[in-house]
């Protein structure tokens, strides 16, 4: 029995039947992490002892004939944006280095309740802001397919650890593509559920109206299994949906005959890598062969998606991240240092005669100094950039021109999808314009980095569901991702469509060549 490569569905069944113990499984994965996490840097924290203890408890209960949960023994990696009471939660930020929340995120509680074994917390772009995982305060994640390339982001660690068999499944979060894009670049399956389908309680907020937690797995069937545990109403999240949770795993098998998939012509315009275009077109052909029909649809406002997203998300982020001020928890600057501006730096007071006076404090009070310096030291450059963008766009005098207008365009984008779903069941296309790009390629060009989200942000702005999965490889051996978007609560259909595709293809079974 080689548990590393088994699907979650098969691994859970094997443990349940006693073909392998949860402890054996955990040991295999923890050893793999020991070996590979050095170069890949997918995990920020690995909790070997707790994972083994947890696995031993599951084995003991199984042997005693006591009930075990639906994910019993399954090694799960959790993005470091989800609170865990027994492990640090840092959001890959110096601001929260070593921070231990006093509570578990709702999704983490549900995973524990289902007897999943949480092996560790995964690396990410700081506060989930980024598309390459290079914005981590604790170093970038390497793409398991090519260590010189980015895994995508922000859930880069979650994508990489599943692709490199360091966990069977991972939990990510997606604000503008942060599950789907790294899943696409790492050759795995990632689902961004409908907004409100999975509780956000305990997910460290980036942009509250866009954030959504979802599974990152090797296949749609595995995502369906995870969704049955993590989806559902939470009274502790006012934006959580009350709709009953379907049995996703039992809804996969119906053939795709008659399924109408939309294709947006603009998705194949400038900026799309030709190899990605080829892979995506082949996937359309495969869906057609499986009985689906392909239709042209229009999303007239999609071209404003990036502009809209990069107003809405930073505005909310500027407020959500205000709490990291050094007063109550997290990084606090040492007092005193730098309170007086160095000569030649900072502000100087003017005397009434216009002569320069002695340099005075750069800050209006010790409190403001603590705020400014704690935040200056604790946040990385991309987080600061977005806080400044959002603060500016919400400021009086700019609010109407930026934030209010972005909200209006957001409504138009949402309406585009509603209109499009009148004539098709799902919309297909590329996940991102290129395959995994070299580390460092876009770090000095924020705008180029923002454009990697161009196909994914619409799903979040509209609050609907989206899934990405591998549909081929470039000549250089990099995965190509395909994205399907569906109406609100269309997860059963999204998962079924991808599962049917994965029954006919084996892209999702390919593995990067890594040391055994």
């Amino acid at each position: 029995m080689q548990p590393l490569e088994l699907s979650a569905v098969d691994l859970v069944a094997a443990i349940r039947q006693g073909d392998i113990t949860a402890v054996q499984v955990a040991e295999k994965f923890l050893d793999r992490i020991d070996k590979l996490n050095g170069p890949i840097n997918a995990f920020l924290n690995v909790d070997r002892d707790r994972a083994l203890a947890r696995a031993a408890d599951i084995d003991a209960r199984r042997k005693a004939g006591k009930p075990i949960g639906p994910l019993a023994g399954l090694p799960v990696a959790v993005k470091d944006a989800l609170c865990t009471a027994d492990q640090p939660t840092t959001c890959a930020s110096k601001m929260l280095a070593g921070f231990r929340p006093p509570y578990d995120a709702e999704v983490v509680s549900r995973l524990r309740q289902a007897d999943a074994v949480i092996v560790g917390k995964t690396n990410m772009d700081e506060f989930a802001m980024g598309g390459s995982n290079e914005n981590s305060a604790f170093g970038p994640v390497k793409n398991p397919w090519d260590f010189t390339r980015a895994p995508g982001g922000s859930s880069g660690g979650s994508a990489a650890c599943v692709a490199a068999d360091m966990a069977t499944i991972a939990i990510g979060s997606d604000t503008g593509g942060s599950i789907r894009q790294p899943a696409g670049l790492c050759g795995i399956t990632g689902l961004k559920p409908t907004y409100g389908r999975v509780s956000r309680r305990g997910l460290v907020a980036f942009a509250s109206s866009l954030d959504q937690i979802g599974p990152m797995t090797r296949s749609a069937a595995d995502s369906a299994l995870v969704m049955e545990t993590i989806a559902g109403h939470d009274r502790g999240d006012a934006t959580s949906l009350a709709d009953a949770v379907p049995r996703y795993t039992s809804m996969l098998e119906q053939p795709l005959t008659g399924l109408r998939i939309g294709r947006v012509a603009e998705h194949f315009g400038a900026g799309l890598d030709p190899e990605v275009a080829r892979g995506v077109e082949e996937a359309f052909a495969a869906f057609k062969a499986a009985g689906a029909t392909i239709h042209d649809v229009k999303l007239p406002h999609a071209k404003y998606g990036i502009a809209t997203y990069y107003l809405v998300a930073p505005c909310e982020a500027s407020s959500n991240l205000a709490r990291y001020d050094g007063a109550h928890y997290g990084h606090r600057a040492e007092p005193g240092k730098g309170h007086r501006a160095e000569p030649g730096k900072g502000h100087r007071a003017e005397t009434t005669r216009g002569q320069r006076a002695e340099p005075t404090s750069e800050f209006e009070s010790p409190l403001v100094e603590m705020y400014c310096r704690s935040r200056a030291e604790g946040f990385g450059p991309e987080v600061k950039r977005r806080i400044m963008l959002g603060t500016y766009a919400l400021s009086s005098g700019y609010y109407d021109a930026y934030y209010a207008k972005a909200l209006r365009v957001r409504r138009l984008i949402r309406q585009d999808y509603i209109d499009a779903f009148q004539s098709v069941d799902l919309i297909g296309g590329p996940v991102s314009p290129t395959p995994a790009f070299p580390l460092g390629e876009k770090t000095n060009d924020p705008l180029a980095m923002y454009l990697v989200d161009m196909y994914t942000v619409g799903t979040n702005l509209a609050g609907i569901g989206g899934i990405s999965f591998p549909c081929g490889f470039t000549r250089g051996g990099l995965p190509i991702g395909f994205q399907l978007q569906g109406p609100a609560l269309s997860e059963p259909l999204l998962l079924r469509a991808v599962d049917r595709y994965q029954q006919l293809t084996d892209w999702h079974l390919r593995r990067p060549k890594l040391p055994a």
Partner: protein
Amino acid sequence: MTTQPTAAEPFTTIIGLEVHVQLQTKTKLFCGCSTTFGAAPNTQVCPTCLGLPGSLPVMNRHAFDLAVRAALALDCTIAPFTKWDRKNYFYPDLPKGYQISQYDLPFSSDGRLEVIDPKGALWRDVRIIRVHLEEDAGKSMHDEAAGTADTRIDLNRAGTPLCEIVTQPDLRSPQESRAWLNELKLLLAYLGVSDCNMQEGSLRVDANVNLHIPLAGEGGADGRLAKTPIVEIKNMNSFRSVERALVYEAARQWEEWQATKAEMGNTPKQTRGWDDAAGVTRAQRHKEESSDYRYFPEPDLVPVTVSEADIAKARAAMGDPPTVLRKALAEKWRIPAYDADVLVNQGRDLVDYFEDLATRVGEGKVASNWMQQDVLRTLNERGGTIGEFPVRPEAVADIIGRVTKGDFDTSRGREIFAEVLASGRPVADVVASMGIAAVSDDDLVSLCKELLAANPKIVADVQGGKEQAAAGLIGQARKKNPNVNPGKFRQMCLDLIRGM
């Protein structure tokens, strides 16, 4: 109350109030933590009110319903759809870096609350711009005594539901502002919406004030009005300090006007803090962040809809507000408006006490007299609430009943009331132990005869037609027997004299 400019005060004072009232809920507005006052610092907190990463707010519908009740009693229009907004600013007792409040769509607006003057006439009809709901911040305690200038933060209060009530600048004097606040406090207490305890911070007042000064030189009474710059006064911790601060501020603005002639518009709105000990307002440092709160809709909460049924439910839970109750009480028990006002102003529990008493006595005015002269007077002397008052309505009714029956007179009844209050013993016991027993007719006749014999002048006067002369006998009779019923004694004397 005149509010026209006079020679002594050649201006009109224009006042608007902003009142923050803590709602009386068991739990906070967006989490399940207790709101009980006085617990050890930071013991009534959870991830949500601490603003920890990943925590989310969930609205306490009971708090919202209470706020709707208050707004309805203030005659406000309730919005069918309302939402929450974030008010962003940095302060250590605001752990999220923003306060969840309501900005452009408050749940209610356009209300009014009248204040009546001490004689029962309408003093001022004060329009209310809006009432909205928000969460309270924590408390900062500046520990300057320790010499370290450390600030300690207690977040027990953070997230407590707070109603903000904003009036139009309709008030015209410090005195009526105080009276209006008293009326508001009374109303909110009657509604069960807030205990309005200023010491515990459950009611806080800011006042906006400026002067309108007729410029005589530019056409006399028809001339232009000069308006002094608006000043917002903060840090007033009692209604009395609101009144004092406003009196001070009006005088200060008048002096400043005479010196500078500075008018509204030339200068930005100033914030001044009230120093109660010194009796002055002082300019507060302009806070940069106060200029732009970057309000935007709170994405963690869903908008709130209020149905007609919700409003009907809130109305049903409202009970009679003081204005209605004063009229109702006066009519039902046939008591003067003044009496009803005094009773109602003491709060719902005292009105209940009165109605219990009046029902037992069967006569409103007598019950009201006893309330005003005995119950309220001693309650004020003792302190405490009417609920804790040891002499219950049944005991007072017992005493009044014995007076009516003629067992003893009212002044003797008062002594019994005082003794019941002091000893805590039942009325019957006190009556017995004070040797009070009904004086028999035989005893009364012999006492009359004895005193008539001893006072021939009085007898002659009465016979001469001056019946009031008989009163001189009553004092003597009570000296001989304190239990004598004066009315009965007097009548018997008159009867005996006529029979002579």
